[in-house]
């Protein structure tokens, strides 16, 4: 390592820049061995380095997860609302949850922040916060259920995604709505879930502008899906027929993850 302070700073910056990729790469490698590792060590209890059995098991589990996507899409009723709760049941403090620790929350400059809109939409004009705030808002007190098992009740309010998609002239017959985030997280929803009346682009949490750690300045809130399907700090919305995947889904979490 160089002792030259400018060189050291350059290396530090570089490291910070590749950190998210490193984390992603680690997780992916972990999954590839993860899906087969447990199985192989239990079924054979011996060599884990050969992938023949593991690949077959991984392929089977992956196929089952895709079949479960279809079962869940069939089970999903667009008119079934997630249960709502009184304000007295709101959980405080609310858990911080991300693929990084709280001090890595992305810094957002409100003055330059905008929401890009792309794909199968007629109006691709980027949105600013005041324009989003000017749209009709919906509020909900619903249960956030994490894929880890825990759940908490919170209050979110913002623009129903359906009315936003209608306003930008989105092709509502397209298959997917995708999101990209300031923290390099990304995700996607099936169109029926995106059009669900409780799916919102949330601007507020607990009656105040989204705090930094809960997705400032704009997040998705989908009370009919597991928590990881509601990306935070979003900077881009797109409508597409090409499967966009997601940060966790690409590593093995079930894509539909409806509840």
């Amino acid at each position, binding site marked *: 390592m160089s002792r030259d302070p400018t060189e050291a700073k350059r290396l530090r910056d570089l490291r910070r820049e590749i950190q998210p990729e490193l984390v992603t790469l680690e997780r992916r490698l972990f999954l590839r061995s*993860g899906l087969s590792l447990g199985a192989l060590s239990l079924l054979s209890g011996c060599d884990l380095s050969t992938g023949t059995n593991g690949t077959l098991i991984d392929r089977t589990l992956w196929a*089952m997860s895709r079949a479960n996507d279809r079962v869940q899409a069939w*089970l999903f009723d667009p008119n079934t609302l997630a249960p709502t709760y009184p304000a007295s049941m709101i959980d405080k403090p609310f858990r911080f949850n991300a693929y990084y620790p709280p001090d890595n929350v992305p810094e957002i400059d409100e003055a330059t922040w905008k929401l890009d809109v792309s794909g199968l939409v007629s109006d691709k004009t980027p949105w600013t916060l005041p324009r989003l705030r000017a749209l009709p808002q919906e509020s909900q007190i619903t249960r956030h*259920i994490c*894929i*880890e098992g825990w759940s908490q009740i919170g209050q979110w309010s913002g623009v129903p995604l359906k009315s936003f998609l209608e306003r930008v002239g989105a092709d509502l017959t397209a298959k997917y709505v995708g999101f990209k985030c300031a923290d390099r997280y990304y995700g996607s929803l099936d169109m029926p879930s995106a059009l669900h009346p409780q799916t919102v682009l949330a601007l507020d949490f607990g009656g105040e502008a989204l705090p930094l750690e809960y997705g400032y300045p704009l997040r998705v809130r989908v*009370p009919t899906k597991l928590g990881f399907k509601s990306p935070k700090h979003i900077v881009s919305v797109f409508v597409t027929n090409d499967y966009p995947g997601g940060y966790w889904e690409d590593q*093995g979490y*079930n894509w539909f993850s409806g509840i």
Partner: protein
Amino acid sequence: MSSSAAGPSRITVIHPLVVRVTHWINAVAVFCMLFSGWAIYNASPLFPFVFPKWATLGGWLGGALAWHFAAMWLFALNGLAYALYGLFARHFAKSFLPLSPGAVWRDATAALRLRLTHRIGQYNAVQRLAYLMAFLLGILLLASGLALWKPVQLQGLANLFGGYEWARRVHFLAMSGLVGFILLHLALVILVPRTFVAMITGRARVPVDPVETRP
């Protein structure tokens, strides 16, 4: 527990093929459900303990969930096949009935005084109760599991358990009960190893003229 080797006997089918096949498919499915379920539990423990790493399946939460949501189909569909067979081929009626609290008490006290004879091919009242409980726990695991998987789409079912958070506890409790059954089941198989062979071949030597209990 001793077995009656004396007296006239014959070899007969005590476990029909459907029971044997569904038993072993169920053994694999339950193994996958338990070990992956414990890995899922570890991601957010309900109680102040976690399951040891060797008792988990899937390697990480995503892998464990993939196992759990794949094996659940095997567990449910195999269980359904067994239940249909049990009802329509009168397997349940023939093997598990009649069952009365008095008979359970009689056989339980006899077993505790080591005076209950194990007669292969016919279940005593304690066994009947244990198998019935295991079957009911399986149904409870399926129902509470469905409530956890779909607490919004199946909110009526989730509400039966008192909502999502209570369904988690019911699911855990039912799992604990089933594990208790499995431990007892395995202990008894070790005590009377012939029963293990019988669940594979389906056949066992049984006395021609069976006697209720022996001193």
